[in-house]
């Protein structure tokens, strides 16, 4: 189920330039009423238009690309950083653990949006900056989780047995500990992607997200909020899109948990 929603999202991401009915950046004169108000869903604009008369469906489809790419790559980057930090801290213990975890604590102590705004003020505004900022925020949670799981797992007898049998540290860490802690981490990251979608929308709302006129879902909600009473569809459709993708990532997390469980794949 989650896979299905995400498959649709991925396909849209890949093919959005070919399936958008209109230019997502273009403001149509026919897209506004005579009073300059946005038009609701109709034959010409299936999901209506936004405050500038741009086609909402096209913007929504193109927005998939931004939202999905930014959220997923930010979390992959966070998984990489947090995973490495967590594995090392949990496995080596001692002073390295202390240093790495204090660093993580320091990072966690920053208010997320404030940190994001400060960084965006310094770095050039672009999608890459947003990815970087988001991953900087997200890796700490991954690091803590991975460290805790690694710590618990490395106490288990099969790890001691590996030591006694002369397995190298990298082998124990990558072949034995990692596969056994992976499923909660994957589930956590999937949930994190969902949260990142919302966080990224929040950044766009504050004007520190992807620079306009990019049709980002969060930015679309932000742009439509003033017209919410007159033109609720501007907020509603990106909202539904965010909702569905968050749901999709949650379902995916569940599906992966089942797929990764050795109790369910015997023989």
């Amino acid at each position, binding site marked *: 189920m989650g896979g299905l929603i995400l498959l649709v999202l991925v396909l849209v991401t890949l093919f959005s330039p070919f399936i958008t009915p209109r230019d997502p950046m273009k403001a149509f004169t026919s897209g506004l009423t005579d009073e300059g108000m946005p038009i609701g869903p109709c034959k010409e604009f299936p999901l209506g238009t936004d405050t500038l008369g741009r086609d909402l469906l096209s913007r929504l489809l193109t927005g998939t690309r931004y939202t999905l790419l930014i959220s997923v790559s930010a979390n992959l980057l966070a998984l990489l950083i947090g995973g490495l930090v967590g594995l090392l801290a949990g496995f080596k213990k001692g002073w390295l653990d202390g240093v790495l975890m204090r660093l993580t604590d320091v990072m966690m102590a920053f208010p997320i949006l404030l940190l994001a705004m400060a960084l965006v003020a310094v770095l050039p505004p672009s999608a890459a900056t947003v990815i970087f900022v988001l991953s900087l925020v997200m890796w700490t949670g991954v690091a803590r989780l991975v460290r805790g799981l690694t710590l618990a797992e490395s106490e*288990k*007898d*099969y790890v*001691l*047995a590996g*030591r*006694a*049998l*002369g*397995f190298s540290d990298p*082998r124990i860490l990558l*072949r*034995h500990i990692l*596969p*056994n802690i992976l499923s909660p981490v994957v589930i956590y990251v999937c949930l994190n992607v969902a949260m990142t979608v919302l966080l990224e929308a929040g950044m766009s709302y504050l004007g520190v997200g992807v620079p306009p006129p990019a049709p980002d879902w969060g930015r679309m909600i932000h742009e439509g909020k003033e017209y919410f009473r007159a033109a609720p569809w501007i907020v509603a459709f990106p909202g539904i899109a965010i909702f569905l993708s968050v749901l999709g990532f949650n379902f995916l997390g569940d599906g992966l948990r089942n797929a990764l469980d*050795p*109790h369910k794949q*015997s*023989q």
Partner: protein
Amino acid sequence: MIAVTDLSKHYAVPSRKGGRKHLRALDRVSFEIREGEILGIVGESGCGKSTLGKAMLRLVEPTSGHVVYQGKDLIKLPSGELQALRTDLQMVFQDPYSSLNPRMRVGEILGEVLWVHGTRGKEEQDRRVSGLLDMVGLSQDHARRFPHEFSGGQRQRIGIARALAVSPKFLVLDEPVSSLDVSIQAQILSLLTDLKSRLSLTYLFISHDLAVISMLADRVAVMYLGRIVESGPVREVFSSPLHPYTQALISAIPTLSDEPIAKKAKALGEPANPVDPPPGCPYHPRCPLARGECRIEVPELRTHHENHTVSCHLA
């Protein structure tokens, strides 16, 4: 074969007043294991017997002491040289559930050990895996299954097969049957005695079960609060125990007739806290015979007669 001298393992624990105290899981433990024998280690839970097995193989880094094997001190050995000797010294763990990687099939678990130690060919590897499974009484098609598809006893067999995969000379058996049903215990114990004679192994058999030790071991060492309080040939220690603690342990073995169990249990009481061991003999608060010197001076382990040693002022 292996000589252990003054092996200690202290854990630092924060004390309530701030600062640190030391939990002495092992306190200057010394003994010797002779080629081909089974040395039993008995004691209550928390007395440090598991730590002893792990510290000997450096699965837990001991605080101080020596473990000399083949003229080399394992505790001082750099990790490279240690790895070369590790194949000789293996361990079978207490919990057959956490001692096997749940994500690997049995064939992979055994195959990996062989691979790491140089058996790289697929056919050769498969042949040796089924040889190992056969040795511990499992069949060849068990190799394709995951650990969770086996019973506790079968898992313990897999754990034994894994230890045997590197052709060791010495095995630490850390309560290998404690978590199994009594009927399964007997099967695993007979497998272990059988393997011992077939492969001429030497065992350090850790257990809290005196009946199991008396059946299996040649010699026995009794541990209390991280120290060995008595050791000697198993028959002698069990028939004429010298230390009051050993006497209490032996009299506490439940029998079908005899006096009520509750009375025996009362005589034994609770062990002292290893973080704050009492001054003098660590056993004196529970000892019915304790005298003045027991509260002041720690008794040394000394030879009572022949091979029978004891650490008690009164024996």
